[in-house]
């Protein structure tokens, strides 16, 4: 769907949100005056309390439960108004941040649910393609040895033709790894091993020893497949998520810059 450019302006959203909020309160006609000592728990409020309960517990509240909800509501309202009366909202770091966060949320709300068209996403894909490549994957056999010397001796034995499956030490590591991603190899063998593995060229020969945090390994690296960026159609969703995240961040910044530009800030040094 194409909307006019002005509908994408953060300032418009701020205004919009302001109007919405003002409008809502006007329609409901129940602006809370902190100075008032009258609390009207009207039917609408009751319905809302019931609904909250219903959505939480999956059933309507009993009379006693609704009474409890009302009591809780009144308690919160009394303390809230007294707090406002005492000015406790002033200079409260949490309140201050919460308000600021709400402004951020207003700025980003549109981007969270907007559906960008293909043109926007294809451009994004073209500019940020590398981010969508899957990880490198590895296919190899490995033997584990406790010490480097043992691994060297093992390599000599393998080269003189002994059965590889009986040549290594006993350990709870897979002897054969079939097309596993970098992440999975990392999880089982650790970082140091991956560094060594990346130094090897695929070959049908045994290579090494390669060190790891667990000891030393002889490796027969069959394949190392670099991840290729998939065609746009296959990863449209991923591109859209990436676009959305970046757009949300950009919109928050843009909205802030807009507001910030209206302020004259003096910093005393």
């Amino acid at each position, binding site marked *: 769907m194409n909307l006019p450019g002005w509908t994408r302006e953060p300032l418009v959203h701020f205004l*919009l949100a302001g109007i919405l909020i003002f409008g809502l309160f006007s329609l409901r006609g129940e602006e809370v005056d902190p100075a008032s000592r009258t609390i009207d728990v009207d039917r609408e409020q009751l319905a809302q309390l019931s609904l909250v309960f219903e959505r939480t517990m*999956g059933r*309507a509240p009993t009379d006693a439960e609704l009474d409890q909800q009302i009591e809780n509501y009144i308690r919160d309202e009394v303390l809230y108004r007294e707090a406002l009366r005492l000015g406790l909202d002033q200079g409260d770091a949490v309140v201050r941040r919460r308000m600021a966060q709400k402004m951020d949320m207003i700025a980003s709300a549109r981007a969270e*649910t907007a559906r960008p068209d293909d043109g926007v996403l294809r451009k994004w894909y073209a500019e940020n393609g590398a981010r969508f490549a899957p990880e490198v994957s590895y296919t190899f056999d490995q033997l584990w040895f406790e010490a480097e010397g043992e691994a060297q001796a093992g390599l000599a034995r393998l080269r003189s033709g002994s059965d590889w499956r009986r040549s290594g030490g006993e350990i709870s590591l897979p002897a054969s790894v079939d097309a596993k991603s970098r992440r999975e190899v990392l999880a089982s063998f650790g970082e140091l091993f991956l560094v060594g593995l990346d130094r090897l060229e695929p070959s049908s020969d045994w290579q090494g020893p390669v060190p790891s*945090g667990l000891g030393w390994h002889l490796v027969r690296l069959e394949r190392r497949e670099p991840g290729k960026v998939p065609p746009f159609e296959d990863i449209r*969703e991923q591109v859209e998520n990436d676009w959305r995240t970046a757009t949300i961040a950009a919109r928050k910044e843009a909205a802030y810059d807009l507001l910030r530009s209206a302020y004259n800030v003096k910093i005393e040094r």
Partner: protein
Amino acid sequence: MRQISASLVVLGAALFLASCGSTASEEQRGNGEGTIELAEFPDRPYWGDTHLHTDNSIDAFGFGVRLGPEEALRFASGEEVTSTTGVKARLARPLDFLVIADHSDGLGATKRLYDAPRMLIRDETLLRWHDMMHESPQQSQRAVAELINAAANDELPAALTADQEAQDEDTLDIWSRHLDTLDRYNKPGKFTALAGFEYTLMPDGNNLHRVVMFRDGSDKTKQTIPYPGLETKVEGLWDYMDAYAKKTGGQVLAIPHNSNVSNGLMFELTLADGSPMTAEYARRRARHEPVVEVTQIKGDSETHPFLSPNDEFAGFGVKGWELGNLPLTRRATPDMFGGSYIREALKRGLSLEQQLGVNPYAFGLVGSTDSHTALATADEDNFFGKHTGNEPAIKDRALQTQNLGTREGRFGWHYLAGGYAAAWARGNTRAEIFDAFKRREVYATTGPRMVVRIFGGFDFTEKDWGGDWVRAGYSRGVPMGGELTDSGKAPSFLISALKDPDGANLDRVQVVKGWVDASGNLQERVYDVVWSDMDRRRAAGGKIPAVGDTVDRTAATYTNTIGAAELRSVWTDPDYRGGQWAFYYVRVIEIPTPRWTLYDAVRFGIKLPADAMADAVAQERAYSSPIWIKPAAK
């Protein structure tokens, strides 16, 4: 007024038309069943954090964190993010799953469709109610009556309960948006984002918190909202969980944590009001809470030296936290410890099961972070602090007092770096990870990623290591979290512990046994089962000589020149008695390594006080879930 309303309609419509819902695929939105090929047996431990806070938590937010669920998910799955204090951070090894557990109290979920301006409500029934409410008090009353009636008969308009589109309209609904975000990062086979929240029950400051974790995707979780914790009862939480399961056909479980600051209330022998425990309570507790978080930033709850005087490794992460409840408004006395630590709770469970026929405390164990920085960090050399107020940019964070209500007793250096949860699952999906928790095939570590596997049975021998011992384990025994029925023969255990490939070597593997003796008393014993250099480190006076210590206190370094890469053993209980109620769990101990406090001291050139310095080197560990044995039913 009329004009404002008119422009409101136009602008509101524009806003509404532009929003069209979430963008995760169907596979990402569900529980992951049928999305990936599963291994025959759980093939590896999947690593995760079930207890992470973001800026949706009112306290995390108050502490200053500005990173939200999106950043938390990016970080846990291996991407680089910038922390609130501006430090770039990326996990060297990504996690496999994450539960963002923001506090339900004060969560923005309080923003509801009901507040929506009229033009955003499309459901006809809702629209009618809305109009009735604004028409007159009498009409409003009728609307409420209708509403309650509809809710009772399960005839609420779909828009109020399940209709996703209707909820998407409510663009500020934090819970709903949060679930969409989770779905977008949930990638079956690669990374699992589970929905959850923290239930913050805390009578008088005594910590009875639970993390609540869902098995399902947003199609089901959007039908509920998080249950508030303050001033409720835990039975209310269980009612909530039952209602969720009944309404959606989904599943949910709760994970108690920080029993160490509960002042004995987490694992009581009685009900909360002091009356005798009932079978009904025990059954509900066991069903809803199959796993306990035993270790995290705010200390470790395995056991206290007061409870386990013969355990030389007791008391890890106890300093500071043992003093009292969470805000330190009430001091702890030793008689409270029994209800605060998991080993004693597991023992109490045996005794209660004998009396009631059901064990309320038959739980598995996990670790997690409870980090309030949106960053799921647990390693000593990357500690990001409990909350944003003590991220690594803050030089003397180890020395600051932790004034959660008090300025005495607890200091920054009492914080642990945080733990992780390992789940033995057949694949990385919401359903598989959740089911591993449900059957307790999970374990805890204080941060390092050791691979710990145990099977209990009656005929395991050393010969099993030569073949496919995992298959043997599953076919002739039960994995961690399982139960054995007494067969008149001592149980034997296949126990294997592989070090963290990027971490420290292993010192030893121990079995912790708890049982009820013939006179009904609760007993415990720690057995050293296998350790490094066994030929040189021979037992003397019932103790194995210490493994040694390679930590350089001036450089915060250690070497793996001591300890072992892997320790394995088949262990048979030498003290088995027929008809005994018992549990066995495995504790794996690493060689000594620097704690985050020592890394900090070296990095920032600060001098730690003597007590903090004495605590700056520790032996990190893993705790398996127990295997239970009980007499055959008569």
